[in-house]
């Protein structure tokens, strides 16, 4: 039905807009991705407060609107109306640019994310490389914010962020190498379609053919590194409210502060989506008798996001030197060993990726 409607509208729009049509059409698609994403970010904050509330035997927000559903909107309006205060000796231009740099990469990365077969803004061959490159830019927002605030706490936060995020990018990238090896492609759609084939998929239990099973250690490494990369608890020493107040965000107020928040939650959704696409089969159905579709991807993203919240409510914060040890001395050797295992496995007669 969707295709029929599109087939009706597109030629008319093309005739009306002429040479500007590709630009307008791309903008429309970008809005179609960003607007629901922002809504998801708003309700992820609400869901987080609810879930953690339930886990701690509290009620959580329930005053604004039915069941508290308007709470994120109220929060947004409140932050929007607040004054943005500039510290007296802050580097003003950088102070303003930092929150933008924190949010922009988390949004730009969605350009290559396929939501279903063919539902993708830019179906490029180097999709995985683009994702890794863009997400590695996210650290600039935090570092610049910490430095431009001209505050000791903020600066400590940004130093921690610089070391932690660069370290965990290494293990994330190495974990992705195994995914690339078994998929033989850097294109995200091809990676998902590669997971639809296999012995178990032929028996109708497709979820056993997804990458998470043969790459189980990498799945764990990627998920945990993803939590560290987005600076979520138990790796949130960058914020570390008990030690350095709120780290890089300590001098920010109003909408500038809200942008950091949006960036963090958009980053969480992005990492969950990546985990779903690389390891959990993207939009593929887990069993043969149900059709594939976008809703499977949505369910998988929601599950991984719930895992993020669950972990936050469960574990105490890591100490900084232990975070570094985990990244460099545990994850990097595990990923390197598993790359070797997968390489030998693929070359042996027992290979399952032919």
């Amino acid at each position, binding site marked *: 039905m969707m295709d029929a409607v599109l087939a009706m509208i597109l030629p008319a729009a093309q005739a009306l807009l002429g040479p500007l049509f590709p630009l307008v059409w791309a903008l429309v698609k970008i809005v179609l991705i960003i607007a629901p994403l922002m809504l998801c970010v708003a309700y992820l904050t609400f869901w987080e407060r609810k879930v953690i509330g339930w886990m701690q035997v509290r009620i959580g927000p329930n005053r604004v609107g039915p069941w508290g559903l308007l709470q994120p909107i109220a929060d947004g309006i409140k932050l929007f109306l607040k004054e943005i205060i500039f510290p007296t000796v802050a*580097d003003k231009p*950088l102070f303003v640019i930092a929150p933008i740099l924190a949010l922009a990469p988390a949004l730009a990365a969605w350009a290559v994310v396929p939501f279903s077969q063919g539902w993708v803004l830019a179906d*490029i*061959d*180097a999709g995985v*490389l*683009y994702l*890794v*490159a*863009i997400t*590695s*830019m996210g*650290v*600039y927002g935090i*570092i*610049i914010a910490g*430095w431009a605030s001209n505050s000791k706490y903020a*600066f400590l936060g*940004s*130093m921690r962020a*610089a*070391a932690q*995020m*660069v370290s965990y*990018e290494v293990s994330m990238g190495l974990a992705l190498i195994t995914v690339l090896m078994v998929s033989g492609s*850097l294109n995200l759609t091809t990676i998902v379609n590669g997971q639809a084939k296999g012995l178990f998929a032929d028996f109708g239990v497709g979820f056993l053919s997804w990458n998470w099973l043969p790459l189980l250690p990498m799945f764990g490494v990627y998920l945990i590194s993803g939590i560290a990369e987005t600076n979520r608890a138990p790796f949130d020493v960058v914020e570390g409210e008990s030690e350095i107040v709120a780290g890089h965000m300590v001098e920010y107020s109003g909408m500038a502060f809200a942008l950091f928040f949006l960036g963090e939650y958009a980053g969480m959704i992005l990492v969950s989506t990546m985990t779903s696409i690389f390891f959990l089969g993207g939009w593929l159905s887990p069993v043969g008798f149900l059709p594939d579709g976008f809703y499977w991807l949505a369910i998988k993203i929601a599950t991984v996001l719930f895992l993020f919240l669950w972990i936050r409510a469960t574990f105490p914060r890591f*100490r900084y*030197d*232990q975070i570094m*040890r985990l990244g460099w*001395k545990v994850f990097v050797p595990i990923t390197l060993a598993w790359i070797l295992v997968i390489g030998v496995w693929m070359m042996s007669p027992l290979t399952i990726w032919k």
Partner: protein
Amino acid sequence: MEFKAVIFYVFATVLIGAALRVITARNPVHAVLFLVLAFFNAAGIWMLLQAEFLAIALVMVYVGAVMVLFLFVVMMLDVNLERLRQGFWSYLPLGGMLGLLMAGEMALVLGGSYFGVENFPGQDVAAEASNTKDLARLLFTKYAWPFEIASVILLVGIIGAVMLTLRKRGDTKAVNPLDQIKVKRNDRVRMVSMHSESDAPAAPQTDLTAPKGE
């Protein structure tokens, strides 16, 4: 003008502007950030040349990792600008000569049409070819040995840098996290089996030798 040309000029203008600001910015942190901007625009120009692997690798390696550490160092150092600017004029002749040499070499390549560079055989690349795949194939087959040797040299560099800066200090109280993780409950807590305490019964009048708490 073609749309692609417009994009090229935008990237090129920002690139040159940012590169100039790298050497003229007074604040070293600003200079590093302008260098990041310059890298980003260079990546954009490479993307226009359809060298998408090189462009993304530039962003990934330089913007995403190297410049972050650069920024880290520059922010940590309290750079004294006055001292940095000392001796500017005495170094100018040497620096200027090196700059001219580099500019001349680039002119040789860029002004290729004057020197007949276009007579060299061009690369025939199919329109649909993925240059990531092509590069990988070349790197791991034809140039496998140079590639491996380069990576070993880099590894030696990493280990050398670590060894040069690694020093054991006796006066810190830092504990190895591995030792801390290995700790078992029994190393820290000793469980003592004892009878639970209870309130003493009302002070007995007669038998003072009876054991307490029974």
